[in-house]
């Protein structure tokens, strides 16, 4: 069966790309100026070590290197990391030596996943109908207005929209809280902000895709068979115009996860994006590598899901 083979092939690609991501990230860390870990920071976190002699410091560093597995050559470090990664064991981070990274991830991942899924759902269920309406009412004010807002939404970054929304809803109207992630009310603004960009892109793309399909010969054929507008649009135009939409959802997912990084920081949402930014600003390399790994994995798996939907929409895929 073609579909199973197709999925297996995609899974293999994901596997290879993930390994590539880890290797590249690791090598980048390694060639970073300064040491793999920052002595000053280490000293700061250890607090009292300032008074130690160079010999004692050496001993401490050795212990540190052992704890984080840095006492072996780079290729071996990478190999060890990969081995651990597939058992979902990532060891401790620099900034939080007492808590294994997988525990931190497990706590924060659901938050980001919820944010991402809610946003993508919102983007799709609003973006697609918006594009359809704009296409069917083309060159009317409905079309112009929705496309103007889509243009704004697709180029103004999520965080800017976030700021504008905070000004409107928190500063002036005082209806929504500016931060947090406990109550549904706190989730409204982050979800909308993350969703707006992809929503706008989807709407614009949906519009042009549907217009393109409506100009196809087979639509004329359907009308010539006596189809009503409704029947022709629903049975022939929509499904065909959704196929190219699915192809842009992949890049939009990447875009969306980027959005979560900003929005989690803007609205102080305790998710992976925030963890990632903290890791970067504190040069916490184990945490940085791992959060990159997890975020990439999420995007790729969601992409796979999208590709499976694609194969169901377009029968030509299964037979190739």
């Amino acid at each position, binding site marked *: 069966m073609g579909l199973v083979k197709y999925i297996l092939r995609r899974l293999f690609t994901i596997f290879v790309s993930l390994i590539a991501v880890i290797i590249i990230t690791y090598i980048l*860390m390694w060639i970073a*100026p300064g040491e793999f870990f920052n002595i000053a920071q280490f000293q700061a976190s250890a607090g009292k070590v300032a008074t130690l002699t160079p010999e004692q410091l050496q001993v401490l560093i050795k212990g540190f290197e052992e704890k984080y597995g840095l006492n072996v050559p780079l290729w071996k470090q990478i190999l060890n990391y990969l081995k651990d990664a597939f058992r979902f064991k990532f060891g401790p981070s620099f900034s939080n030596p007492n808590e294994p990274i997988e525990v931190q991830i497990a706590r924060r991942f659901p938050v980001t996943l919820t944010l991402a899924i809610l946003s993508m759902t919102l983007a799709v269920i609003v973006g697609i109908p918006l594009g359809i309406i704009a296409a069917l009412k083309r060159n009317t004010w409905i079309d112009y207005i929705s496309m103007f807002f889509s243009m704004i939404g697709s180029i103004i970054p999520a965080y800017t929209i976030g*700021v504008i929304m905070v000004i409107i809803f928190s500063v002036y109207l005082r209806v929504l809280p500016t931060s947090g992630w406990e109550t549904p009310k706190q989730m409204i603004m982050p979800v909308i902000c993350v969703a707006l960009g992809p929503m706008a892109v989807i709407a614009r793309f949906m519009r042009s895709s549907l217009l393109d399909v409506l100009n196809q010969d087979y639509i004329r054929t359907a009308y010539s068979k006596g189809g009503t507008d409704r029947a022709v649009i629903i049975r022939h135009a929509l499904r065909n115009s959704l196929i190219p939409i699915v192809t842009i959802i992949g890049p939009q997912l990447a875009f969306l*996860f980027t959005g979560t*990084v900003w929005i989690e920081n803007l609205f102080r949402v305790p998710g992976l994006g925030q963890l990632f*930014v903290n890791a*970067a600003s504190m040069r916490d390399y184990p945490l940085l590598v791992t959060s990159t790994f997890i975020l990439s994995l999420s995007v790729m798996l969601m992409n796979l899901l999208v590709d499976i939907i694609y194969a169901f929409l377009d029968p030509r895929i299964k037979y190739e």
Partner: protein
Amino acid sequence: MEVALKQQKRRASYWSAAWGRFKKNKMAVVGLIYIIIIIIVSIFTPWIAPYPYDEPHYAHTFEKPSAKFWWGTDDLGRCMFSRNLYAMRNALLIGFGSQIVVLIIGVIIGSIAGFRGGRVDTILMRITDIMYAFPTFLFNVILVTVMGRGLFTILVAVGVTGWAGMARLVRGMVMYLKHADFVEAARALGSKEGYIIRKYILPNMLGPIIVSLAFGIPNGIWIESGLALIGMGVRPPMPSWGNMIGAGIGYIMAFPHMVIFPVLTFALTLLAFTYVGDGLRDALNPRSEV
């Protein structure tokens, strides 16, 4: 430019025809004028800005817009207008600079894949596909963390992660052009490959590349601000729209002017580039002339 075009009127060149189509798009023309103005302003920023970007006025912190400080001051009493000008300058530098990096990498990878074909093509395009659907912002952050937070390193980081679209575009065009009938015709006439590339392939690739770059510039600006927002952009006190917005957020309740001005100039700049990109796309699209 105008004068030169008028002289050539009888012999309407390909590019002047495109310019004629571009001129019809009013939003694109407005966008282009705006961009030309901000480029000129950016070149002369040190002479135009009323104050240095990092000069604090402790007696004038959090001031609302006034005759002295046109767009008000921030938490350290620094002139918001001057800081905005410098932020714009940095944004343009990174926007244009990153696209140069994108152009170099994208054209090299795309043309190798397109011209060589076969296995080389398959491998390069697999990598490109992964880059295309990868949250490259993560790599941006890592690169900046690793290489430091200078203007140049940010520009390189944005370019190094943003070439996938360009590579795909160039590859697609090379694949099409190398077997296009008019290229085969040139080959049949006995022209050397260099001549074919110079006179037949490159001129036909230029239009789509320009359009892609026009859309890439706002994207670069956008990523730079995104980096700055999470503290990964240019080092303070050097201003960036991102860090100005990030800093202003904390005082948004009391002093919204600290956020509103950077957000507006930022949004306007992105809009202008996008309208120009749209205009270029329509003007250079070979389909629009048939």
